[in-house]
């Protein structure tokens, strides 16, 4: 069972709520994914559409909300969003995101570390989104991050785990759960992350923009389970030379 900050999760797939064509589709895809943790963002209320409220479609008994600080460009902005999020959701859980460059949406390591330290002191349960930097993961863990969330590839790119080498080191070294976040574009990417020993994955875009998001959510759920089972079962070692699967003896009758 996955445990983060003392809370147990029955599913190792975390869901996002962005980019769905409708709130109903989001609700159904999340249900199909079996997830127990979903991210949300904070934005100004649209005063032209005051009834537009995503919370009507999210069952708080079923999902733990993980509000993000998306849009924050530095630690100060992230902390302001964190305080709004705690007031809005009544919960200290937070996906810390500090992305100063809208072109790459890559996280700022210095501001992320600074914000993590301050927010942990202030009682938040912080899951920082980070570049796949093994040393940074240790630093974040040291200042009290509840988990680390290294990126597979930049947000929304569907490119899979182009950071595999670093993610493996992060998993090997981490004492807190490792959640591979961002860029997982296909169930096979999620399965690979789990086979590598990630504790969980977070998927939003790949499910939300699929032709059939509900079916894609199920596909990701199966892939995450398959990858986790494979990791726990113990994968065979990769080798450079062939190693026959059939016996090499008992062929005398052919020669």
């Amino acid at each position, binding site marked *: 069972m996955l445990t983060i900050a003392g809370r147990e999760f029955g599913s190792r797939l975390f869901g996002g709520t*962005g980019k769905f064509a409708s709130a109903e589709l989001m609700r159904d895809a999340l249900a199909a994914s079996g997830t127990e943790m979903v991210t949300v*963002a*904070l934005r100004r209320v649209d*005063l032209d559409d005051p*009834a537009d409220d*995503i919370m009507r479609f999210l069952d708080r008994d079923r999902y733990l909300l993980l509000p993000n600080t998306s849009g924050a460009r530095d630690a100060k902005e992230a902390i302001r969003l964190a305080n709004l999020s705690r007031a809005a959701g009544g919960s200290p859980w937070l996906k810390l995101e500090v992305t100063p460059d809208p072109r790459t949406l890559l996280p700022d390591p210095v501001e992320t570390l600074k914000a993590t330290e301050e927010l942990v002191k202030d009682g938040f349960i912080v899951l920082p989104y980070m570049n796949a930097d093994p040393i940074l993961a240790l630093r974040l863990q040291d200042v009290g991050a509840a988990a680390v969330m290294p990126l597979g590839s930049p947000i929304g790119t569907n490119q899979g785990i182009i950071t595999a080498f670093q993610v493996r080191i992060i998993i090997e070294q981490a004492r807190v759960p490792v959640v591979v976040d961002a860029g997982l574009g296909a169930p096979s990417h999620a399965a690979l992350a789990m086979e590598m020993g990630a504790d969980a994955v977070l998927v939003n875009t790949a499910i939300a923009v699929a032709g059939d998001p509900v079916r894609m959510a199920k596909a990701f759920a199966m892939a995450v389970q398959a990858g986790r089972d494979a990791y726990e079962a113990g994968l065979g070692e990769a080798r450079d030379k062939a190693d026959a699967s059939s016996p090499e003896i008992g062929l005398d009758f052919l020669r």
Partner: protein
Amino acid sequence: MPDYLDESVMKIVCNGEERTVAPGNKIVDLLRELGLEPDTVVVECNGVVLKREEYDTHLLTEGSVLELIRFVGGG
């Protein structure tokens, strides 16, 4: 009579836009006027995040800067 001479209206800034409200109005009055269910909105007034129970008592004052925030879809 221009607004600035009219003591029956106050100017505030709400989500970046100037609005006029009647003196004595509280946060909850503004939310209702905007068609917002108070439990679905977080209010930051002059940089300070308000608690839900303060919506019913917190008076709007001339020049108050409000941010009305809520959860939206995100990853």
